[in-house]
């Protein structure tokens, strides 16, 4: 019997400090047993449990794309016991990863459609995974227009800045990067909150367009009416939730919203699905 609680042992290969407040770091992990990498086959939108031996586990969205081989990447915000311990670790350290867990963005349903990705703050991790995956030549041809609206408090708080710039230069993806305030004079992109930029830049909703929304509750709260106004059907607004989790496999009982477990039945839900469940997230 396979033990779903068993973390695959991994080695930290690289640690990248992402933001100017140093609270967000991206960790690149390599599996000690290459066979485990195959078992960890994932799809953008899924998450894993990072297991710092001796401290505990935290559920974190997978930031790398399945098209990137030989490693997995997670971007972690420093908030609690485990994430703090993780931030103190260095390349070469051994720890564990469990997963992949949860469902993913509905790539099959969205095949042939336009996709608008709306993200804010450090909730951009699985969105990075999605964008890298979408831009892979094998996948890009299967989807229509791609818009990305991504905002952070300031330019220094944007994740994956080099990649954002690279995507800006491409013509097969429409990037709308924004910051709440630009504190550097050379900022040449948008200034303003994500909902406002969405209203100005996102294409109108129709049967062929899906929106993927992932961000802090306040952003979601104000983005939703904008998408309504643009005519997006609630069945085509895709959201990714976060709740406190332990097991990640729908057993420990804490992350439920109604009868659904965010860890197993989610974290990805359509707005339509969410409207039928109690708002406990």
């Amino acid at each position, binding site marked *: 019997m396979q033990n779903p609680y*068993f973390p695959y042992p991994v080695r930290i290969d690289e640690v990248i400090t992402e933001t100017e407040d140093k609270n967000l770091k991206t960790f690149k992990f390599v599996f000690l047993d290459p066979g485990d990498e195959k078992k960890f086959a994932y799809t953008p939108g899924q998450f894993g449990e990072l297991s710092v031996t001796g401290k505990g*586990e935290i559920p974190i969205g997978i930031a790398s794309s399945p098209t990137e081989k030989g490693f997995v990447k997670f971007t972690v915000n420093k*908030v609690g016991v485990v994430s703090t311990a993780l931030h103190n670790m260095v390349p070469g350290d051994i720890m*564990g990863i469990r997963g992949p867990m949860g469902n993913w963005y509905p790539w099959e349903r969205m095949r042939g459609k336009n996709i608008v990705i709306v993200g804010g703050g450090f909730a951009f991790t699985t969105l990075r995974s999605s964008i890298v995956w979408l831009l892979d030549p094998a996948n890009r041809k299967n989807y229509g227009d791609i818009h990305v609206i991504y905002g952070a408090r300031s330019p220094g708080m944007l994740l994956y800045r080099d990649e954002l710039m690279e995507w800006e230069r491409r013509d097969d993806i429409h990037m709308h990067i924004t910051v709440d305030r630009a504190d550097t004079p050379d900022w040449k992109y948008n200034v303003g909150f994500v909902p406002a930029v969405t209203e100005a830049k996102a294409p109108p909703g129709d049967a062929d367009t899906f929106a993927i929304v992932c961000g802090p509750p306040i952003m979601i709260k104000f983005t939703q009416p904008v998408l309504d106004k643009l005519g997006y059907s609630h069945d085509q607004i895709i959201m990714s939730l976060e709740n406190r989790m332990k097991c990640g*496999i*729908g057993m420990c009982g804490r992350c439920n919203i109604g*009868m659904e477990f965010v860890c197993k039945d989610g974290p990805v839900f359509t707005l339509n699905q969410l409207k039928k469940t109690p708002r*406990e997230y």
Partner: protein
Amino acid sequence: MRDLKIAKTDWAKGVEKLFGPYRVFGPKKEGLFHNFARLEKGEAPDFSCKNTRLSAKGLIYPQTEKMFEYTLDPNKPDHHVHKEPVKDYSPMAVLGIRPCDAKAFTLVKLNFDTPEYKDPYWIKNYAAATFVGLACDAPCHACFCTSAGTGPYDTAGLDVLLADAGDFFLAKVLTEKGEKLVAAAGWAGAGDAGAFEAKAKAAGDKVVSKVNTAKLAGKVTNDLHAAPFWEDLAFACINCGTCTYLCPTCWCFDIQDEVCGTEGCRLKNWDSCMYPLFTMHGTGHNPRGEKAQRVRQRFMHKLKYFVDKYGAGIHCVGCGRCVTACPVNIDIRRVAEIMNGYEPGKDCAV
């Protein structure tokens, strides 16, 4: 299935024979109350209590259980790598479990043994156990098993069911596992199915406490969730975990790492939806930060979410433990009644 008749003297001799092929567990008085405990050779299970204070769930799902162990000593090979500890999954005989507690395992199984994931600790323990049930001829006044999907003579989840008939037990052997145990104990006298049925009928009639749950499945989740009565129902609650820890069907747990020196382990501990920390995010945000939200979660889970998710009735076997042990008398029977009768917009007395 077949019927047996076991004289009490043969019962005692048979139990003696089980030590060896089985680890034997049965009710034992510890402090003020009876609980299930591992019995030593020569010890007999104590059938004098109506039911154990804690349910039998701890036998299969201990309150604290080791999942993994590891070393943090960098000089040792495979440091920081989790290893499964060696555990005893040899056969266990559970003697004198009440039908409600046995039925509860079949509900908990839905959570730990799913098509996608299997909890190996629970599953291996459960597979190791042979359950010898003891039917209830004198149900407690707070028992409402017959309206919670089971009953004093229910055989669900059992391998053998005993009924006390004075000098002897009438028994039903229900499964292959049960046959093995009966053979190991050497019980063979032919039984009396008619007498068994008559006792079962009489016992069922003695369960006077009932709950109505028929309309729960038809309710709209968000209506019940938004119902006005939760604040009132939750007022007395002190947020202890008594109800959930005593409950045979509650399965929620926490995962904790503990380190002593350079050696550590990962533990699975019972947890309770009554505790504020249960759902607290790292950021401090808490979707169920208020007492009323947590009380609502407990009852919504038992009486609505579970009903909808599995279509296997309510997540409760009517053992009455939470009813009698709650320090402030929050009574699931009353809550079920209110939820079952609730219509949005209509006034409802709490």
